[in-house]
């Protein structure tokens, strides 16, 4: 079974790629605004449906719509942010917790709206990429790389690099990092915290919605899918260290590899118990995420 090792590795990394896309925006939003957004899965759901309908109406490759979805949801995020800002900047109550419950409320609203408009059934977004795979077969050695998944991984890496670049190299990134460090001081330095936060939230919502299109292409989409991805995204972000963007890919790969190894080498039934137990133990050992770099 050693021949399957490359396959297990590749599959783990590909699953990890999907996890990155789910979690990266969430991590950004937390890192900058310290908001735990329990509606992240619902943004993914809504984005997926926008992609689904656009594809149905136009019959064009769904991944071409990614910028459209990003823009549409970015605008929504931009205008929603002040409301959330107000909730998490109140003097009373624990701001993180308030944000968490508020976005839980938002999640219920989105889910209810989604069920009303889209119904209960599952759908799928057809992409040309879902058709192919790169296959290597030498004797007993098999390695299959699904192109769709590979596209997902590429998307994940591109988004991660773009975000890192934006944060580390641009003026906007400087403002964002200043904001993440200290809201009051950044205000003194001529940064408009409200505007910057709005942009960050817009980027986060936009990325999450785009991810929805990808998820709908790789897996399926339904109005009920949100909660699952919220949980996943939360797990990845916490494992990476809350708000530590550079940790997200590694956390995602770790969770992906646990899954692929259990599915291939051990009893597949124990996959999830392994994922949850390992997540728990890792947090005990490294209380601020894998690299100890989280908030």
């Amino acid at each position, binding site marked *: 079974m050693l021949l399957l090792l490359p396959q297990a590795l590749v599959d783990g990394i590909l699953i990890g790629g999907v996890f990155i896309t789910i979690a990266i925006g969430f991590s950004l939003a937390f890192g900058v605004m310290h908001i735990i957004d329990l509606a992240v899965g619902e943004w993914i759901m809504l984005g997926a449906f926008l992609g689904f309908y656009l594809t149905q109406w136009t019959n064009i490759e769904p991944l071409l719509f990614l910028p459209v979805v990003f823009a549409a949801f970015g605008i929504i995020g931009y205008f929603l942010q002040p409301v959330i800002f107000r*909730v998490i900047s109140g003097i*009373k109550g624990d701001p993180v917790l308030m944000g968490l419950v508020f976005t839980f409320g938002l*999640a219920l609203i*989105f889910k209810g709206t989604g069920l*009303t408009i889209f119904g209960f059934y599952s759908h799928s977004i057809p992409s040309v990429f879902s058709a192919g795979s790169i296959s290597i077969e030498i004797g007993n050695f098999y390695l299959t790389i699904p192109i769709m998944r590979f596209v997902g991984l590429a998307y994940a890496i591109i988004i991660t690099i773009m975000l890192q670049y934006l944060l580390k190299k641009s003026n906007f990134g400087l403002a964002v990092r200043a904001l993440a460090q200290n809201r009051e001081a950044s205000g003194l330095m001529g940064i408009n915290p409200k505007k910057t936060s709005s942009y960050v939230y817009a980027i986060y919502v936009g990325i999450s919605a785009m991810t929805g299109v990808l998820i709908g292409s790789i897996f399926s989409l339904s109005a009920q899918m949100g909660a699952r991805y919220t949980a996943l995204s939360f*797990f990845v972000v916490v494992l990476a260290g809350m708000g530590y963007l550079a940790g997200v890919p590694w956390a995602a790969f770790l969770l992906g590899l646990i899954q692929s190894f259990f599915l291939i080498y051990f009893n597949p039934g124990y996959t999830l118990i392994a994922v949850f137990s390992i997540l728990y133990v890792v947090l005990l050992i490294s*209380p601020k995420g894998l690299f100890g770099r989280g908030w």
Partner: protein
Amino acid sequence: MGTYIKGSTIKLFALIFVALLLLPLIFRNPFSLRIATEALMWIGLAISWDVIGGYTGRVNFGHGAFFGIGAYITAILMMNWGWAFLPTLPLAGFGAGLVAFIIGFPTLRLMGAYFAIAMWSLALAFQQLALLMNITGGPDGMRLPTFLNPEFFFYLMLVMVMGTFVLLWYLMECASFGFKVRSIREDESGAMALGLNPTRIKIQAFVLSAVPAGLIGGIYAYWVSYIDPPSVFGDIITDQAIVMTILGGMGTLIGPAIGAVILFAFKTVFWAYLSDYQVLYLIILGVVIALTVFFLPNGVWGTINSYLDHRKSKKNDSLIS
């Protein structure tokens, strides 16, 4: 806070207790009793969550695990070892408490979201375990003997939840334990300088939070007579307890109780009479939660309380001047 047990408080508790005792005589309807029993159950889950979540400041996303452990202990003892129901209850509570004690030491070192997620993943691991083991019946769950006596379950739940409430009231609002726990919430290292051992106090609070959940889980198993991993280890137990507590007001006991009653009453009435609009329920609930957090960040009771405090301090000011 800062109050001892006042005569009026005791009287009020006694009044509520007697009123609840008489409830089955007024509402002879089994459905009403079932609803009342479930409302009590949620009060119990919300206040027990608040011990660790509100008083100790560790938001626990895995509270349902204790509920599930209690439910499965009762079910397994009854079905696999032929126990009678009542003797299983102490064990259900003990089991939940024991788990809290064991995991408490390593887990409670974690802060904020890390603690929340560690507990969540642990609860999900328990759910998976229940799905995989034979003794729990795996995904098929377990069916218990049916004992459909609404009064029995109402009174049992009432005694359990009222007992929990009074005990927690004493510990948190009257005895010194409440102070210690709050100081941990506010600043652990500062508390250490004052001679408090944070680890010990956190574990005590954690066990105190887990035991009632386990007991309620045990009652739930026999009451509903069927349990399976999603229904007792599912996220819904924890989610609802948290939302109820925050709606009502964290770090208090009356708050979560109010939150539990409001949310549960809303839910029940909605489902019972408006179930054609099931999807609307999610939207309305979402709006209610969002608006409450937006306008009443301290929850319903927290807001009433600070209003009362405000008035009291105003009165004091006028006395001084």
